[in-house]
């Protein structure tokens, strides 16, 4: 079996191998959607790369020794083959240390509840092979935090070491947000909803920035636009990581996306909903006029 999975690989679409996020990205890429390039370190990679095939890590997890498990995960020498595979896959994403996002991708089904247990880490704008490898280990380590172990002891299994990691080229988003292919608040299938901010979508996640809110007809025509003034944007920091960029009132107070982009989003959303058979919650970003789909999952209403 390959040590890292490409989105185009058949088994990358399996949750068991690539985790929820990884499998979803593989399916999106497979559906022909514009997904930024990336790769997945599969769920079994950590145990396989440990010198004892994970025996000690299993024992630590079963004892709920969070500190011991995390020390092992962050410090142990892994099989060199995995290192080489990660570095090669990373190099293929672009020259000059292309900035990437490194994210946990859990295999457990109730991954929403699991995120409360702090099992889902995300590192944005990571640059350089060593940094990428360190953040992969940080993702693994998060799977063995005290809260995560407590959660799996209660709700899952302590034998579960199934945590994949997704590495994906960062989109230097000029604007980003979420598209719902229905109106989840009013439970309407004849409408779509777009939320949009300037810069990375992360600005809206914390609630610190209230995104613009657009209601679209299914054909993409804007039915209602509610514009919110955005005080700052989250953008990539040249040095790695992200930073805040303050926005002047005329920039932050203007519409974040135009009618054309909204129509394009509606088209992509409609196509994806028809392929997957249920309303979708889609994370998107736009860079230099190019639209990218970052993630999609069924809408829970």
């Amino acid at each position, binding site marked *: 079996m390959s040590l890292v999975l490409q989105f185009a690989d058949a088994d990358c679409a399996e949750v068991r191998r690539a985790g929820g996020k990884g499998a979803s990205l593989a399916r999106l890429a497979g559906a022909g959607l514009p997904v930024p390039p990336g790769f997945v370190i599969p769920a079994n990679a950590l145990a396989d790369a440990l010198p004892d095939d994970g025996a000690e890590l299993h024992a630590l997890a079963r004892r709920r020794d969070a500190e011991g498990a995390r020390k092992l995960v962050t410090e142990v020498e892994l099989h060199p083959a995995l290192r080489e595979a990660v570095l090669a896959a990373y190099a293929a994403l672009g020259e000059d240390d292309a900035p990437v996002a490194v994210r946990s991708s859990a295999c457990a089904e109730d991954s*929403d*509840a699991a995120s*409360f247990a702090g099992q889902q880490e995300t590192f944005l704008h990571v640059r350089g092979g060593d940094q990428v490898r360190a953040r992969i280990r940080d993702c693994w380590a998060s799977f063995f935090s005290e809260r995560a172990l407590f959660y799996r002891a209660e709700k899952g299994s302590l034998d579960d070491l199934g945590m994949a990691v997704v590495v994906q080229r960062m989109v230097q988003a000029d604007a980003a947000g*979420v598209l*719902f292919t229905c109106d*989840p*608040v*009013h*439970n*309407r*299938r*004849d*409408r779509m*909803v777009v*939320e949009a901010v300037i810069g990375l979508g992360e600005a*809206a*996640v*914390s*609630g*610190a*920035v*209230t*995104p613009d*809110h657009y209601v679209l*007809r299914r054909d993409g025509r804007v*039915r*209602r636009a*509610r514009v*919110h003034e955005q005080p700052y944007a989250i953008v990539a920091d040249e040095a790695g990581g992200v930073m805040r960029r303050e926005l002047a009132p005329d920039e932050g107070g203007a519409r974040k996306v135009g009618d054309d982009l909204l129509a394009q989003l509606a088209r992509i959303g409609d196509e994806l909903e028809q392929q997957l058979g249920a309303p979708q*919650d889609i994370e998107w970003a736009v860079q230099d006029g190019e639209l990218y789909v970052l993630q999609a999952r069924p*809408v*829970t*209403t």
Partner: protein
Amino acid sequence: MAVTTRDDEVLGTNFGTDAFPVQWREGERDLFWIYDDLHIPNPVSPLFFDIGGWWLSCDHMFRRFGTPFACDWIAKEVNGYVYTAAVPCDPELHAEATEYENRYVPRVPRDPEYAGEIGAYLGGVLPIYAANFIDWWRARLRPEIERNFAYLDEFDDADASLLELAVLLEDAIDIHDRHWKIHWMLNFAQFASTQNLNQVIEEVGGDPSLMGRLQSSVEDRNWDAIEDLWQAKEEVRSDPELQSAFEAATAAEVMEALGGSDRGRRLIAERIESHQRTFGYKALWSHELMYKLWVEDPAPIVEAIRGYVATDYDYPANLRAVSDDLEAAKREVMEDVEGEDRERLARALELSLKMNPLTPDHHFFVDQGTNARLRLVVIAIGRKLVEAGALDDPEDVVFLHYNELRRLMADPRAFDAAELVSDRRDEHEEAFERRAPAWLGTATKSAIEFPYGGLWGFPDRFYAGEPTTSGEIKGLPASPGVVEGTARYVAELDEFDKVQEGDILVCRMTNPAWVVLFTKIKGLVTEAGGAVSHPAVVAREFGIPAVVGTGNAGERIATGDRVRVNGATGVVEILET
């Protein structure tokens, strides 16, 4: 009681503003229109306004009782909101009204002397109702209602044609009309018996402040429903497997967890589904057709049990406390009353106490049970119209007007109903952006003091004026509806017990541990989260207006502030106090 005439002194007028424009028809300006936030605080659906209103049978009530203070009660939809006005018994009055989409002239007596002369009739018959209504109810009226329910509940709508359902709808409308007529008789009978008790207490020198406590009921359908849920809770608490199923994030997930085991499936069959059948003919808002009933979706039952589990609700103790207090009030009111007075008081008290269960029971049978049956017929028609390709969703049907629906039942291709419903749904959402003033039209002294006005807070609300806003916080609309209340900021789980019934919860974010609070609060504001985040999904499940993703609501709203949460526009206003 004062007789309202148009000569009465005018205290104020509101014929509309730019923010809330009103189109007036003949005679409407002269009336005093109250925003019916008591029954229909949210923008009304077209179909409910046409066929579901409580006002439709009021002319019957006023005629039957010979009330001198009003002859009819009419409704007007303004920018989506329902306003109603009592029509005085004034032959000079020429106003327009609408029922079942038809224009009509409210019934006023031709005889100008009517209002002055009919009062003795009312005074004469009220004691008859007071003395006998409970017997009529038990022997005749409640069985009649139950027979009507059985007819509607047993109707096989799945195999019926659209036109057979069209006829069923007319039956449901007739039944609705009849049950609401009974409702008003019951109201007057109850009013007469409490007024009689009040009067006797006053005459024998008793303490009139005991009246409130003497209205308690300890045996009715409301207590039956609570006992049923409490028994479910007792079962859940005694079984760790059931208890762990109830820790899931949403009601749907609880049901899924229960469905995964024999024990859980037994609880669903014996407790949840049986509760749905017996007590489930009700919705979050009774005076509307668009809200799912408990019998259709068990989520509120699951959440009620969850709330009882979390607080270990003690039904027997609660019932005992109410019962003890009622017994104490009965003793106190009889204290030091002797001889013939004592006998008179005992008789009035007995009569009034017998009527107490009618308050919760008439809600169960009429406001909730009857309106719920109307919805089920309408939604059954909606399903047929989806099958016929006329609509996308059975729920769409409430966004049609009565005659549009009838045309569509006759010919599902009569017009583009889906497109019309889309526009109507948009209008309905946009209606939330306007704030409905408490009253419109002409406020005269007697109009604002109309006997029933107290239900809506008049005349005090007239003098208090409209609230003003001192600050506005924008977030994301997460669960439609508008609510005003007292804010309570909660940072940690150990502050949960500070939350009071009816508070508006302000917090950073919620997760499954917070769900116990949702049974208490009436509005929600969070700093984080989006349209499908935990607080948004659960608020919709509970039908609680919610605004999420406000960023800094916790800094700007202090516990104790009066706030207005608009879950349809995503705006939270801080009101001047």
